[in-house]
């Protein structure tokens, strides 16, 4: 029992990190059919910015955790919007493949830039949560895992509220379904795409900052997470935001359970197992668990 709940909470915490990065991927994919390969490195880069805010004195003092956290989200948003305007917008009329190549270039550039600015060695990144546990009915529940899960899902929830209840959120959904029709209604879709990149960068920053305390800060810290996020997004169906979150949480819990109960699944095997799941999903249900096969009436 104890073992099960520990594995479950650890899985949900990991899963929430996958889920937010997966959601970032889906956000951009749904609007433009582009897989943003730089999503992980954008998250890494913004986590370094959080690190800089936490450790380097600015105007004479360093920030404490939560002010630094929220400031990083704001910076990430501006960063995401800026990248879309500078790198992606000029490729508006180019093919999807060209844009994907640009995101791969962005991946390499951001990775190199982070190593150059902050050095490639591992750094300790603080956690806002204590390492202690709650004991509920004899079961130890990690505050770290619960906090990670809670903060990440809270951010996802706020984003959901935005998409569901605001006019701008509605316009972004409409623009993703039918961009030409949205423009004919007066929607400036080009700016909404930039907004989408901003939100994706914010989600990435959350997943980066939540994963850094356990995985340490390094220029390659998000590369494995990005693959887990891909697997989560494909698992849920690349077009489905709900699917991305469910896929992320499901994958996190599954990997944690396998690691706990199936002896040969050591941490080294997590990535291969995730990729195996990815393959199996693509073979059996290519549209993903929450995706729909697109049928067009002719």
């Amino acid at each position: 029992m104890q073992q099960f709940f520990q594995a479950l909470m650890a899985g949900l915490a990991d899963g929430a990190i996958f889920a937010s990065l997966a959601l970032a991927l889906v956000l951009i994919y749904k609007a433009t059919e582009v897989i943003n390969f730089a999503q992980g490195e954008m998250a890494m880069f913004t986590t370094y910015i959080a690190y800089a805010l936490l450790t380097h004195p600015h105007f004479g003092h360093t920030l404490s955790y939560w002010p630094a956290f929220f400031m990083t989200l704001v910076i990430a948003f501006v960063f995401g919007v800026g990248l879309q305007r500078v790198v992606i917008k000029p490729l508006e009329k180019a093919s999807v493949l060209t844009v994907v190549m640009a995101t791969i270039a962005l991946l390499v550039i951001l990775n190199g830039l982070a190593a150059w600015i902050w050095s490639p060695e591992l750094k300790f990144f603080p956690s806002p949560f204590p390492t202690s546990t709650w004991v509920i009915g004899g079961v130890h529940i990690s505050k770290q895992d619960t906090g990670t899960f809670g903060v990440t899902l809270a951010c996802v929830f706020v984003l959901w509220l935005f998409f569901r209840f605001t006019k701008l959120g509605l316009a972004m959904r409409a623009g993703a379904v039918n961009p030409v029709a949205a423009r004919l209604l007066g929607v400036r879709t080009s700016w909404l795409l930039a907004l989408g990149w901003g939100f994706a960068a914010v989600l990435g920053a959350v997943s980066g900052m939540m994963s850094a305390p356990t995985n340490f800060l390094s220029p390659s810290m998000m590369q494995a997470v990005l693959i887990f996020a891909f697997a989560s997004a494909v698992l849920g169906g690349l077009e489905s935001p709900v699917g991305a979150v469910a896929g992320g949480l499901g994958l996190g819990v599954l990997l944690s359970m396998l690691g706990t109960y199936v002896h040969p699944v050591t941490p080294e095997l997590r990535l291969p197992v995730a990729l195996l799941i990815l393959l199996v999903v693509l073979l059996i249900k290519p549209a993903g668990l929450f995706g729909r096969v697109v049928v067009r009436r002719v």
Partner: protein
Amino acid sequence: MAPLLELKDVSARYGPVAALHGVSLTVDAGEIVAILGANGAGKTTTLRAVSGTVRRDGDVVFAGKRLGRMGPEGTARAGIAHVPEGRGIFAELTVWENLRMGAYMRRGRPNFSTVLEYFPWLDARRNQQAGTLSGGEQQMLALARAFLQRPRLLMLDEPSLGLAPLVTREVFRVVSDLNHKEGLAVLVVEQNAAIALGAAQRAYVLETGNVALSGTAEQLKSDDAVRSAYLGY
């Protein structure tokens, strides 16, 4: 009085293929004007050239102002609603969300009461996914959404496409209604010449990207060439 919309020698191309060779036409305020013609005559391209969904050469003047290369969102903001071929509804969104998108450019809470007077059935279907509506209902939804834009000119591209004759008649009845009661000017592209000439005051006939004929609906209905080519009697 100057016309509401004036196209002066407008041409447009899709890559190397020219689709319009210098089309000139006008729409007056409060008027319904039809554009007739066979497939590939350039009817759809004419509307696209106005709304900026295709690159155009030549001048388009709307309400006394020359429309620059502002793209579809700019044209919409200038007061032209374009219901494109295939209706352009957001299939994954609900009926109500589609309507809210119609009022996207307006500040504050949109007022849906007028639109519900013309399309009362929309109220009961508000939470239905728009993609699950029938073709005729989707066309009506597109009309309602365009009306919520509060345009001065409504451009409709083949509203009869894929609809049963009775439904087509109903669509044109609502269009005429909006024209009479709201004074909305309409530029409608249609293959079904009989129904379009029934609703319109004037019409243009396009052939291979040029205006071949124009006149009042009555003149065109009695024109022998139009009768044999488009009306079939």
